[in-house]
């Protein structure tokens, strides 16, 4: 008897039992079971929910791997143990040492994210008696990519429980949530444990630890400063990285959001496979550029001078907003979440544009933390149904008018 049919027998055995949903979820994860529908018309499509989710994960994997190398690279670079890499293919970047230390810090984040999140999902499926939904597959991959490397694992676990329960399960599970669960998790961490989510110490592996050692009196060590580019701009100080570093991603930041190059490749992959909406991605970028241009105009007009605390971020050339911070990552992987985004084509343009626009606005004006992409996306998540409503109503009105003209 083949493994497949053995599993099938096992499934029959579990039918109707409490454990059935949990078993079925694993059962259908990587292969198609030997079951066929017996009656009625049905359409068979290859891109079911699991396939969709897996495609997004494939688009994320390059960012994750790059994030591991980058974590190690930033760690050693900050300690002065290696040379700057000078470009994407720099010799001191793709080293096994970098990968090892990066994997050592980032794989536990992935494991905790998936372990805790799926445990919650399974628990709810068993209690409610419905099938385990695949929604967490992408969320679980996104979460480790949008947090600082050194975030304590228990904090991540608490946040994941909060995000999955409050952000998703209370609304009815996958497909019913209003807010993007991954961003809910990040928002929870941001408001609950701000010292671990912002500042100049959290973005480089080992910087917090080093800080504590210095505080404990080992003064022969140098403090590691891992200020992000946005952080430097917000303090009106000079930035130590050139544009290519920002584009390739050799900069401190959340694990997966630094490499704009790999994010663009992921975006092209998602557009090519028709999983992600190019309308949302494009309109987000346009929105960000427009807001950037407005700020540049304000600075050029002399309304804001360099004595203002907003001068640093306002005077950033508008196009540069795209390669600093996480606006691209948000646009490609967060804003395009099909559940929480607008559904209508026209709605998608409005939704994306406002995300970009508001992101840059929050980025410049937020006094506590110079980044606003996740807040902007969460805000627009809430408004997405309203946007859709007006788009649909507008259509209805247009057609009613046409009908009247015809009748008359």
């Amino acid at each position: 008897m083949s493994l497949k049919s053995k599993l099938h027998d096992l499934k029959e055995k579990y039918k109707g039992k409490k454990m059935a949903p949990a078993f079925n979820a694993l059962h259908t994860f990587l292969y198609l079971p030997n079951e066929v529908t017996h009656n009625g018309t049905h359409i068979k499509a290859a891109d079911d929910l699991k396939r969709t989710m897996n495609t997004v994960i494939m688009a994320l994997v390059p960012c994750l791997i790059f994030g591991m190398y980058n974590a190690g690279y930033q760690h050693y670079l900050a300690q002065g143990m290696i040379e700057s890499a000078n470009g994407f293919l720099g010799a001191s970047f793709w080293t096994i040492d970098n990968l090892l230390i990066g994997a050592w810090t980032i794989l536990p984040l992935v494991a905790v994210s998936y372990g805790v999140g799926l445990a919650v999902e399974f628990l709810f499926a068993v209690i409610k008696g419905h099938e385990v939904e695949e929604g967490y597959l992408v969320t679980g991959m996104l979460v480790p990519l949008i947090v600082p490397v050194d975030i304590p694992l228990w904090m991540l676990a608490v946040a994941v429980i909060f995000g999955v329960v409050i952000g998703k399960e209370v609304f009815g599970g996958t497909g019913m949530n209003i807010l993007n669960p991954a961003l809910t998790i990040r928002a929870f961490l941001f408001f609950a444990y701000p010292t671990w989510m912002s500042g100049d110490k959290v973005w480089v592996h080992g910087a917090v630890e080093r800080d504590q050692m210095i505080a404990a009196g080992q003064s022969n060590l140098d403090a590691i400063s891992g200020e992000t580019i946005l952080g430097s701009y917000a303090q009106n100080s000079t930035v130590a990285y050139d544009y290519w570093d920002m584009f390739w991603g050799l900069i401190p930041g959340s694990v997966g959001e630094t490499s704009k190059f790999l994010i663009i490749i992921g975006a092209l992959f998602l557009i090519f496979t028709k999983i992600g909406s190019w309308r949302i991605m494009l309109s987000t970028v346009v929105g960000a550029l427009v807001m950037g241009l407005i700020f540049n105009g304000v600075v050029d007009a002399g309304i804001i001078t360099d004595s203002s605390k907003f001068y640093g971020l306002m005077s950033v050339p508008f196009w540069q907003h795209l390669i600093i911070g996480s606006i691209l990552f948000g646009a490609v992987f967060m804003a395009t979440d099909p559940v929480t985004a607008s559904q209508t084509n026209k709605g998608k343009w409005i939704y994306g544009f406002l995300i970009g626009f508001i992101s840059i606005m929050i980025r410049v004006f937020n006094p506590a933390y110079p980044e606003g992409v996740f807040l902007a996306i969460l805000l627009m998540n809430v408004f997405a149904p309203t946007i859709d409503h007006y788009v649909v109503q507008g259509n209805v009105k247009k057609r009613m008018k046409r009908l009247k003209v015809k009748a008359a």
Partner: protein
Amino acid sequence: MGLLSKKDSKLISDPLLDNNPITIQVLGICSALAITAELQASIVMSISVLFVLGVGNVVISLMRNIIPSKIRIIVQLVVVAALVIIVDQVLKAYAYELSKTLSVFVGLIITNCIIMGRFEAFALGNGPWRSFLDGIGNAAGYGFILILVGFFRELLGSGTLLGYAVLGDPIEKTGLYAIGYENNGFMLLSPMALIVVGLIIWVQRSRNKALIED
């Protein structure tokens, strides 16, 4: 209970659980969100409301036959306002620091929908003793949730209870903090009060399915 008849004791026990003003009727949410970041403030708020609602219900009940129904809301407001001013003055005299924390929310007891609701729905149609019990019961139900929320928010948000550091010192890193625990700053923000109340409602309704409405 020998002291109270069965019908009377229901007046107290019902609002505590199955007809709780906050979790079932969803009244008085505003103050539940605003002042529950500290347990002490929640307790004082509960006692204040207990006083205002208990006494107010009796007063309204005594006057119920002489209040012209056209101006009854104004009369009720005068009664609440008078009682709230008493509470406010007492707090300012004996617990000045606390009255500063509670700030406008003591004054806002006037607008607490639970109080006007009980006046309208109960005290205007029942005798003083039953009105008193009803007032005490509803205020206790309100206070119970307030103290519960305040307990969790202060414990998880500041690591203290009534100001005492029960989880250790976050700066000296003693107790739980020695193993890496940190206070959850989100608990101190009002959205978390809403979520905690929501979780309480969730637990209550899944334990008692009769409360679930469609």
